[in-house]
């Protein structure tokens, strides 16, 4: 019986494919872990010389990124890529620009070990955290085995799971409030679909669920080979993760290398390199208006942890 219900549910999903789905308002989170994760997320002791925290590059109240073309790590070392937003990152099916991690758990380890980011190791971090009574107490309260690599990541990931932005204007529109969008915004969404932007930017996060070749129509000038760097597979050259468009107006500069800092530039570049069509100004404006409706509520900012 269960089997048949399952089939029916799946088939309906397939048939009633909504290309973009709203962000759920609530997500199941262990508050205590999230609170601890929050603390860790903002703790500079996670870097080698205690100068960088996760939040150094993912500024929570500024769109979850650092507003720089590329990020800076410890000792002022310059990274190679633009910091992706941590907001709604939990909905991505892969992490990093090259999609090398399948989830946040894997992702969180990356920057800690990266010598141009935090340049640290869990051994060092655990040693440092064990000198802090707060952490000793908190960890032992939540976890049986106290401060461990696994538990540190678990707490951070749990915190990141809380960083979702529901109730954007567009989400409300999707949920049935047809009048919440202006005419132009609706037309923007229509164009977004018509030009096939939606073929890559779809799902709950409006992106983040596939890899795509950058410069599929016209070559995109960049020295970064994207996924190829990981797989060394010729076919994977210039494949990058399709980024989420949620809160897009807050996450400039755009692209993996922070090439452009305005939405207009970004939309035009996408149309030229990816869509293979030239938009007129009016169309671009409408699409930008639509994109701006994707800013969600950041209720997590109001949450004050002790």
């Amino acid at each position, binding site marked *: 019986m269960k089997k048949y219900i399952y089939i029916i549910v799946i088939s309906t999903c397939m048939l009633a494919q909504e290309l973009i789905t709203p962000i759920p308002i609530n997500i199941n989170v262990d508050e205590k872990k999230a609170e601890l994760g929050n603390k860790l997320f903002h703790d500079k002791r996670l870097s080698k010389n205690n100068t960088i925290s996760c939040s150094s590059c993912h500024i929570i109240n500024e769109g979850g990124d650092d507003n720089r073309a590329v990020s800076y790590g410890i000792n002022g070392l310059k990274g190679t890529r633009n910091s992706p937003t941590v907001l709604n990152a939990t909905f991505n*099916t892969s992490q990093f620009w090259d999609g090398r991690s399948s989830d946040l758990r894997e992702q969180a380890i990356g920057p800690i070990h990266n010598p141009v980011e935090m340049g640290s190791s869990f051994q060092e971090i655990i040693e440092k955290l064990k000198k802090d009574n707060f952490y000793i107490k908190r960890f032992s309260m939540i976890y049986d085995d106290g401060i461990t690599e696994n538990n540190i990541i678990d707490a951070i990931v749990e915190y990141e799971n809380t960083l979702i932005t529901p109730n954007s204007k567009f989400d409300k529109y999707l949920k049935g409030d047809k009048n919440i969008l202006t005419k132009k915004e609706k037309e923007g969404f229509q164009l977004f679909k018509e030009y096939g932007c939606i073929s890559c930017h779809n799902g709950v996060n409006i992106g983040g669920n596939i890899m*795509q070749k950058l410069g599929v129509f016209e070559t995109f000038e960049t020295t970064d080979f994207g996924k190829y760097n990981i797989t060394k597979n010729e076919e994977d050259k210039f494949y990058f993760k399709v980024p989420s468009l949620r809160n897009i107006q807050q996450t400039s500069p755009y692209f993996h290398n922070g090439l452009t800092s305005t939405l207009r530039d970004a939309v035009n570049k996408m149309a030229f390199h990816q869509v293979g069509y030239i938009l007129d100004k009016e169309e671009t404006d409408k699409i930008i208006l639509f994109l701006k409706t994707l800013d969600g509520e950041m209720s997590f900012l109001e949450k004050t942890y002790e």
Partner: protein
Amino acid sequence: MNKRIFNTFFLLTVLGTLAYFINNAKIQNSNFYNITQNIQQIILLNKDLNLYLKNTFKYNNFDIVQNKIISIQNNFKKLQINKTFEDTHEKNLINLPNKVAIALEKKFEIINKINSHRAILNKSYIIIQKLKTKDTDSHFDNLYTKIMTLDKNPAVRLNEILQRITQLQKKYSFKYSKFFLKHCKLIVLYNIEINKSESKLNNIGLEQLLIKLQDNYNMYSQKIIQRAYLSIIILFILLLLSLLIYIIYDYRLVQSRTELKRFRKTVENSDNIIVITDEKIRIKYVNTAFTNITGYTLNEVKGKNPKILSSGNQSKSFYDNLNQTIYAGKKWSGEFINVNKNGDISYEQATITPVYNEKNRIIEFIAIKLDTTKEKLSQDQLHKKEKLLLQQSKMAAMGEMLQNISHQWRQPLSLISTASTGLLVKKEMSITTTIDEEIKILNTINDATQHLSETINAFRDFFNPNKEKTNFKIGDVYKKTINIIKSKFKSVDINLIENIDNISITNLDNELIQVLMNLLNNARDVLVSSETQNKLIFINIYQDKNNVIISVKDNGGGIDKKIINKVFEPYFTTKHQSDGTGIGLYMCQEIISKHMNGKLTVTNQSFIYQNINYKGAEFKIIFPKR
């Protein structure tokens, strides 16, 4: 007891194992269910994915595809971490999950690629439709149709189309035409890519692998479940068996306990004294009879040697013999003379038995004793009484003797007196006597004294306490008896009719004299008091095949039937108090039966003597010949 402990242990082990097996089977069963579910879901999700892959001309929400992939991955992870797959040595299963894992990984990778390609493809299809409307030129109509029907026309040669597009690209460089052609090229290229990917997917053979996994797993689980059932059934049978044994043992134990209880009760309440000691003869247990008789309670004597009861009247060798016997493992029986708490002597008839353990070592001794003090005392009293009676009868006999002596001495004494006085008178009166006369007188005196001496000898013999049996002739003994009592018979004119066979026997002659004297005197007394004119006593001494018989029969009329059975009882007499003691016949019987191994009987007889009928009592002394 060991068997019982063993059985209990066995029972518990079987029970534990059974519980473990059942629990294990339960876990395995739910495990099997979970795994089957997981495999089925993977198969279903995979079918969904395949369904999706066929769906070409549509925008896709890749979240759905990704969620399916994640679902499959989660299900598969559950499979992989399941112990069944880790533990199994089943040939058909051992490498299958790994193969599936690799196939899944490949498939997901290809699907991701297809996703990317399809996104482009779908977008380009939309764009060319848009561009077609802008491009009024009909040069591309043919190409457009071909492109739009690509998926419905699998036989079409993509490379040919590609060549055609390249040709057209050279020809038309107008803005929209350029875009249109480029998009067409992209569509063809990505179609080629997607076709490649799809054939790659077919090569992976994930579906076959999954079905193989399902089939093999079902076979494997069937096998395991059957094995589990079998072991549970075997264990259950074992459980029943041991339970049965347990019940049997228990029943036996209860039975033996009841028996033991009964035995214990018997021991506790027995009138016999029962003492149980350990192998070093230290008292472990005594029963109530012990306490009643000795005055000691169990607590007072526990751990002590039963020697504390010893009166000291028995020699060391007595106890040594006892110890030797029981330590040699033999039963000892004998009589203890002990003292109780109050210092009173008690006699105990005892049996001591050693008790062995299964290793054939003596572990304790059980003494069962019977208090014989009372019997012993009354026996002693009886002995004393009998002695007294004997004494009395002897005294009576002595009185009789003295009477007889005085009778018998009267005549010789008067003879001596007459002879000596006659001689004396003659001398005083100076009558001369001849030597012959004097010698005659002196001879008479001498004969008389001789007679006196003989008489006294006969009496002395009678009183001689000769307890040794001697060989004598009954006739001689009878003569002696008559000699002693003849004086009494002469005075009353009784005829003794004797028929004597002078038989030799070995026995106590003096005792026989005493009995004969009694019988003859009794007969005389009866005849004296009877009115019969012709007073007769028949004395017959004869023998038959087995016995020597002395019969004393009178014609005094017999003994009253009412009392004939009582004549041998002590203190029974028909005579006047002053004449009879009542112990005469009693003593006779005692002497004959206890000291002389004979029998004394009495019967009333009617008989004819010299043509006259008589009645009388006949006493018979019967000595069996050896």
